């Protein structure tokens, strides 16, 4: 059913990547290239306090001494870090819009094209949206309702100004400045992103959501998200991403940090649909992202759900540090790679506390000439008595030229740990396809249906209103993969 709507939508738009439009808005940019001056420029643009600038400069100096990682199963030409812009903001947003009315109508139009209802639809759905256009947060809806509940949901640039103590305490506490090449780069030049703080015992009254979009040419996007769930609180957060079609490769190096204190729960869902490049593998986003959640308190829980359909290259391992006793980490993933896309994605579950549990469900779909790798680590610390992990990794191959790879690492240093790993690789069977065709379902729709069935366990983890969108994406991203 979802697949049908998809085909219609695509036909109506006359192109495969419906998010591939460019919005013509005047941009303000930092000078090209990366230097201390670039970092200072960004910090000044944001009106940041001195401590923040120092933090960034520290990261920048460190980054200069680091090397790009090469261990992932992805191949790309060297990135020229000096030949990119690190800050681009819509000019009209320079004074900072205070309400939806003040936002450039062209931006609103963009969001409408994206299908992001920054309007009544969203009100009805009860979703609070923070939209990051290139590097700047342009609108945050629902502030009032959230602030009644005591929830802070704002652009991180605003949080740095208004809640410096919270930011100082938690920023970089999960993903240290020195963590890895891309995270360190992000720490130096991040321009915006979302900040969430849910106070003790509060159940966030609505889904929180951020939409990221890269629009400007030659720019990288480096957003930074920080979510803190205080004791006994709960929050569900969703991010979506799109980018225009461009021949060049654009870098996206985001960092997301989650902190769950005692008894808190964070559910973080991603629907990633950055431009994947064309059928020949030209263009597309390099999605090099560091996401990590810290179950800092006892009985806390962090659950990652990701639907990765876009990007030319995906390098991403949303992880959990299970520090608190009885804490729980989950990772549910769908990664689709078609044409020449390359995905190297998975998770790391670090069991540090007693009775910690983790669950990993990964569904990888490869089509065309794509390469799709699941890379996962389950580590059990000597102190983590009775740790439990269950991992299930299923790969589905469409056609004979693609590849699926499963690379599980297990490091157990406690005898009481119980770790289960299951993996399967399959193809869409000819008899399944024939059965669908015989019942009148055309080939591409049949593939979308079967693949959605294959991914069901993960799709079910998504908030209702986004599950439908995700199902459609599965159909779109596999178009042209059969026949």
């Amino acid at each position, binding site marked *: *059913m979802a697949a*049908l709507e998809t085909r219609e939508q695509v036909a109506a738009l006359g192109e495969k990547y419906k998010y591939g439009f460019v919005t013509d808005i005047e941009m303000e940019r930092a000078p090209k290239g990366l230097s201390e001056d670039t970092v200072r420029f960004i910090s000044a643009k944001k009106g940041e306090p001195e401590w923040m600038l120092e933090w960034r400069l520290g990261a920048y100096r460190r980054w200069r001494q680091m090397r790009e990682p090469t261990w992932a199963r992805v191949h790309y030409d060297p990135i020229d870090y000096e030949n990119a812009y690190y800050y681009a903001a819509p000019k009209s947003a320079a004074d900072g819009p205070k309400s939806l009315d003040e936002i450039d109508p062209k931006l609103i139009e963009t969001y409408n094209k994206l299908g992001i209802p920054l309007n009544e639809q969203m009100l009805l759905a009860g979703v609070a949206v923070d939209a990051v256009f290139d590097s700047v947060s342009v609108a945050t809806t629902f502030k009032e309702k959230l602030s009644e509940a005591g929830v802070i949901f704002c652009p991180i640039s605003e949080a740095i100004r208004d809640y410096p103590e919270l930011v100082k305490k938690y920023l970089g506490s999960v993903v240290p400045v020195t963590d890895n090449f891309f995270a360190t780069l992000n720490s130096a030049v991040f321009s915006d992103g979302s900040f969430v703080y849910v106070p003790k015992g509060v159940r966030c009254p609505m889904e929180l959501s951020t939409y990221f979009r890269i629009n400007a040419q030659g720019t990288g996007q480096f957003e930074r998200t920080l979510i803190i769930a205080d004791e006994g609180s709960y929050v569900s957060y969703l991010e979506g991403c799109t980018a225009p079609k461009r021949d060049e490769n654009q870098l996206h190096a985001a960092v997301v940090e989650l902190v769950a204190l005692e008894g808190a729960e964070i559910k973080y869902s991603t629907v990633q649909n950055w431009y994947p490049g064309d059928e020949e593998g030209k263009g597309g986003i390099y999605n090099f992202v560091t996401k990590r959640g810290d179950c800092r308190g006892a009985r806390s829980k962090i659950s990652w759900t990701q639907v990765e359909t876009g990007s030319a290259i995906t390098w991403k391992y949303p992880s959990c540090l299970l520090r608190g006793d009885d804490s729980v980490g989950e990772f549910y993933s769908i990664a689709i790679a078609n044409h020449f896309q390359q995905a190297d994605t998975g998770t790391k579950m670090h069991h540090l506390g007693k009775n910690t549990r983790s669950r990993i469900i990964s569904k990888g779909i490869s089509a065309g000439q794509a390469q799709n790798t699941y890379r996962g680590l389950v580590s059990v610390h000597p102190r983590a008595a009775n740790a439990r992990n269950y991992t299930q990794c299923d790969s589905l191959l469409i056609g004979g030229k693609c590849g699926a790879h499963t690379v599980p690492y297990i490091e157990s240093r406690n005898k009481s740990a119980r770790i289960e790993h299951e993996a399967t690789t399959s193809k869409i069977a000819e008899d399944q396809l024939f059965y669908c065709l015989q019942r*009148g379902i055309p080939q591409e729709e049949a593939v979308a249906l079967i693949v959605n069935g294959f991914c069901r366990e993960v799709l079910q983890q998504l908030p209702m209103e986004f599950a439908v969108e995700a199902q459609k994406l599965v159909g779109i991203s596999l178009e042209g993969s059969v026949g």
Partner: protein
Amino acid sequence: MLEIEGLHVAVSGKEILKGLSLSIAAGEVHAIMGPNGSGKSTLSYVLAGREGYEIISGSIRYRGEDLAAMAPEERAAKGVFLAMQYPVEIPGVTTMNFLKTALNAQRRARGEKDIDALGVLRLVREKAKALHISEEMLKRALNVGFSGGEKKRLEILQMALFEPALAILDETDSGLDIDALKVVADGVNGLRSSERAMLVITHYQRLLNHIVPDRVHVLYGGRIIKEGGKELAHELEAKGYAEIIREAA
């Protein structure tokens, strides 16, 4: 409705159907009987347009059109339905969702409007009831973990839902208990009409007591070697294939 003439079909380079001719008029029910490996399922797959079933020579006309020239999904939309001998499992796709997707795909191909989820649900419920198919089954993944009999009943449910012009039932009776056989036969009989033709493939006279055919064909070695009225099925039951084959030779 359906005219097959001198049909030769090869699978993986091996000739299976060797000059088969058969014609069914609207309103008629024909039965095909024949020993294992005689080519019955092969015939049903060729009619449905399965990949890998290569027509070497001969023709198949369906309502005056060249059936072989149509894509399988096009045949479905134009009213060709095959209840399969071995219905296929599709994990993660609920039966209800599958039915809705298929029904609307067929409708769209015919230029008709989609029926919304609620409309399909109503339609399916009504048909399911008659076939003793539970709501719970409709919520499960398509055919996954269904018993042999349940799978066959679901095939008949689909036939009832799609209301095809030409229904081919490949051994729908095998694996059914006596009560289920009756339920399925009632379902089939309920669909008999002057605009519809049916081709019933079976090994057993038992089914034909319930679904009384207009013609019976005996398929052997990829050819129809004998045909007659409904009494031919009784004759087969009494004599066995060996004797009929000897007589025909």
